[in-house]
């Protein structure tokens, strides 16, 4: 099910009429089979761009991307994506939203798969509900079910819990971990929330900004399965402090804050 994602020297420059922005510079990253990797960095460091390139929504300007050895050229069902906003089609009920990506399956099977994954995220009772009738957290759970229903070899998540309140967010993290513990998918998870990045991941990829480069890749040795309570343990806090300092200097340097904050 899971797969190995390899990024080699990935480069991205956005060109507009007057200027060009170097968003990603020579990014090397390997996601082992069944590994959970978080990508963090100051805002504007290109972490979402990186994910969009892996999803095939954006073409890299240079470098190579392979999934289990096969080069990635465009979007595909082998990579399930969860966005932060506008994640569900408002005109479809939860069930139909999940079935939306399953057109290649016969109807009966589509329905069965959709129900199975709605059950995984605990929303089988809401199969017939429309997104506007669901809370933000429930909508994201349906979005996760939809990505999982594709049976992807890797899950790409772009700040999927960024718009949720702190309590819901924390529950969603635990839900995601429990699914991951069971299925052992490879997950590439972009976030700006350092606690979230540490709590979820096997490794954290810290990007520096302008252009986005891999500043450091940090192993997270916290024991699994992870518990909510681990977030106040010494090891967690030290790691958090370390990642924070990495990102903080970057952010200050790149957003013009360093001149003001002496």
């Amino acid at each position, binding site marked *: 099910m899971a797969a190995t994602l390899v990024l080699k020297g990935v480069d991205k420059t956005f060109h507009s009429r007057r200027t060009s922005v170097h968003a990603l510079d020579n990014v090397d990253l390997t996601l082992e089979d069944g590994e959970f990797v978080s990508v963090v960095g100051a805002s504007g460091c290109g972490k979402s761009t990186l994910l*969009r390139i892996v*999803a*095939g*929504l954006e073409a890299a300007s240079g470098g190579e991307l392979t999934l289990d050895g096969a080069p990635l050229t*465009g*979007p*595909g*069902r082998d*990579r*399930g*994506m969860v*966005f932060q*906003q*506008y*994640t569900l*089609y*408002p*005109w479809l009920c939860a069930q139909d939203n999940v079935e*939306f*990506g399953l*057109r*290649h399956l016969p109807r009966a099977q589509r329905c069965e798969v959709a129900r199975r994954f709605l059950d995984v995220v605990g929303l089988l009772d809401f199969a017939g509900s*429309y*997104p*506007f009738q669901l809370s933000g957290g429930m909508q994201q759970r349906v979005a996760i079910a*939809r990505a999982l229903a*594709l049976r992807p070899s890797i899950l*790409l998540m772009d700040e999927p819990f960024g718009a949720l309140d702190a309590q819901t967010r924390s529950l969603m993290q635990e839900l995601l971990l429990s699914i991951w513990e069971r299925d052992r998918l490879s997950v590439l998870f972009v976030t700006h929330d350092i606690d979230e990045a540490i709590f979820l991941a096997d490794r954290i990829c810290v990007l520096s900004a302008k252009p986005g480069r891999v500043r450091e890749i940090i192993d997270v040795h916290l024991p699994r399965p992870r518990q909510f309570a681990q977030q106040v343990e010494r090891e967690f806090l030290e790691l958090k402090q370390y990642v924070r300092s990495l990102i903080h200097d970057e952010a200050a340097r790149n957003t013009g804050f360093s001149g003001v904050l002496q």
Partner: protein
Amino acid sequence: MSLGTRDDRGALAATAGAPRVPHLRRRRLQLYEPVQKRTYWSLAVVSLCAVFGFWALLSYTGAVQNLFLPTPTQVWQAAVTENNTGILWPDVGASVLRIVLGFVISSVVAIPVGMLMGSYKVFEAALEPPIDFMRYTPAVAFIPLTLIWFGTSTTQKLVILFIAIFFQEVLLIMDNVKNVPMPFVDMAYTLGLSPAQVVRRVIFRAALPGIVDTLRISMGWGWTYLVVVELVGATDGLGFQIQQAQRYLDTPEIILGIIIIGVLGLIFDFSFKGVYARAFPYMSRRR
């Protein structure tokens, strides 16, 4: 000063045991606050009655001569007479048929063209300048030309309606399509849809509420131009009826024609709103 006030208020609330802050009391008029259905309808009826009452006041009291502003009674009598002589409904039917045909033909062309222009920049680049040109040319300017081409036939009416409706409609539909949130499209790609499927199954569907609103507004323009075109060169229809009545200084009949057009417009508008509310329940939630 403001700090002091805040403290005072806090102390007051604490001592009085009333959590109410005077500045946050419920106001009668709240921005975007929905009103109850009953309130909505009673306000609508009241405002319509006010217009009617103003008319009645001016006409019955003789403040305005009846030749210029007939009384409601006179208009009602005109309606009864026209109904009995059988000339009312054929005119209404002729106008409704024209507006529906003109509107349907324009929309059937405008929806796919607007979809293409909104989804693909090449179509926008190729089509927007000529469409904009036509949009700024007043449709009524084409009436003499179309009369020479097609006489006073139905075709001539439909051509004018097309010119009047299509060129506005198509640009609005293009905008409806452009306003579709990009994540909807990205998501569809990651779910394995082809570009053609994305246009059909995501962009069209996401733009549909906006498109239905555009259709409703286009229908409104249609009425204006229909009446103009019937006033100028027609042998039946509500505009023709009004124009005939003017010839005989028959003001009750003119007012009757205007009222019928208004009522028909209201019916069409409410039908569109009804369809909208039923088909897109998710749009009524403000986000």
